């Protein structure tokens, strides 16, 4: 499966009535993960997060595509 660029957040058992809600739920959880951390701690948390998610995705073609997009337009 190619890299998904369409909105894709969801949670089992949760019914959403507004299209922005699942993404906002994720974003809040992401920012919350960094609460009360120093900048260095946050960098480390982010790195770990990427590694965890990368392993979960597994497919190197997808990961390469994401890495390419993340670096583009800097």
């Amino acid at each position: 499966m190619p890299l998904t660029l369409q909105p894709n957040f969801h949670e089992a058992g949760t019914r959403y009535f507004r299209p922005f809600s699942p993404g906002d739920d994720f974003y809040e959880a992401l920012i919350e993960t960094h609460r009360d951390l120093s900048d260095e701690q946050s960098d480390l948390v982010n790195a770990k997060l990427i590694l965890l998610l990368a392993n979960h995705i597994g497919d190197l073609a997808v990961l390469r595509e994401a890495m390419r997009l993340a670096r583009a337009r800097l």
Partner: protein
Amino acid sequence: MLSTYRYPKFEYRPAPEQLAGRTQRHPVVIVGAGPVGLAAAIDLAQSGQPVVLLDDDDTVSVGSRGVCYAKRTLEILDRLGLGEPCVTKGVSWNVGRTFFREEEVYNFNLRPQEGHKRPGMVNLQQYYLEEFEITRARQLPALDIRFRNKVVSVAQDGDKVILQVETPDGIYALEADWLVAADGARSGIRRMLHLDVEGKIFKDRFLIADVVMKADYPPERWFWFDPPFHRNQSVLLHHQADNVWRIDFQLGWDADPEEEKKPENVIPRIKAMLGDEREFELEWVSVYTFQCRRMHSFRHDRVLFVGDAAHQVSPFGARGANSGIQDTDNLCWKLKLVIDGQAPATLLDSYSDERVFAADENLMNSTRSTDFITPKTKTSLTFRNAVLELARDNPFARALVNSGRLSVPTFLTGSVLNTPDSADFAGDMIPGAPMDDAPMHEDGSDFWLLDRVGNGFMALVHVADPARLDGETAARFRALAAAPIPVEVVLVAPVAGPAPAGLRVFVDRAGRYAERYDSQTGTTYLLRPDQHVAARWRNFDAAALQAALARATCNC
């Protein structure tokens, strides 16, 4: 004061209590004639309920406050006889655009679907809304509005509430069976009853400028993150009535409010944004900080809190007055049933439960917007800017851009008043849902569904052909309208046809009702007076309907 608006001055008259020299007992007293207290007063008074409305002032909202009134609020204002003047005077819009630095990264349409009467949003200065409400209020004989009547003390005493009210002629006492506290964010009623309101202040300041200018920008909401004319901060632009434009500049926590308000500091900011050649005049300038907080419960025995007195949100999302007016929509029919002895006082606890649930959703959404707009740490700023950079090319990132999630009604999914579904339905019109609108037809004229439901309980029963309804069923439907808590049964049909005497038919002329409500022959919806779904079935069943009605009114 303002070049585009003259503040009305409402006449003070001594209260009947003062003239008669004795205390009177009133079924309902409302404190505060802001947009929310006025909506409550109109709602009750138009149902025939005598109401006294007290306000410490003698004019409408002063300065820059509410701008955006959402579709759901407009539907409520329609029910109160106020939708038309607000929409006519205001600026209707559906599209919001979000810019990051130099370019547009995201836009949204508040009304992705056609076939609704009202637009996603109308922009109108709060003083116009209040003026229209007062005009409407004065047409209602059951409503006694008393300007320059300031409540200075309040006490609950068994089955009544006792108020002391200060006027230019001195202080008088007033008794109420029920008190609705609509006295705003700094509620004196709340303080005098020693009740807490919990939440947080956002550490940021915003310069709010109302500017008069001629500009032919489209009627849209424009929001900038880090624009070239106001680096590292956000800016919001809204078009209001009379060519007044609202501009919000984020200033940061360290800004000095007094300095920032000075015209010599404001004007260059606006010129940087609009370009040097655009002519404009400053109408009103202020600096705000925002809070998010709510009371633990909105009912305290005989005192019911609504609007800013009960909860306060940051304005990104326009959820303040909008949610306050939705409070009154929820409260008034319940209060009327309780006063009329048709429902126990516990029905008012459902007011608190449902509106606390809605307030939490509003607080959550406006807090999330504020956190996105004003990131608190380096990491949140990096994530925010990463989202904005990805948003240009990637739909998933666009969905994460949060420049304000604009006021939409809450689905009251967990309410004890709902009767859970016993059959499968598609779509969103679940028990507790705020009703979707639909274009309909009745007796030779087209109309919008939401214009003809509400104020009382109704049941919409889907029939294939109204002419073929048998007499016995018709009689059963009519009997429901004569019950102590009347339920008006209306037939919904795909085609017109003569209905049995005493029954109305709504023709689903575009098929939108069938689609949005997943309705087929037999499908029956029980609707609350505030245009929310109470229950629904695949077939009409009188006993089930009675049980659902009892449940929706706490009579079981």
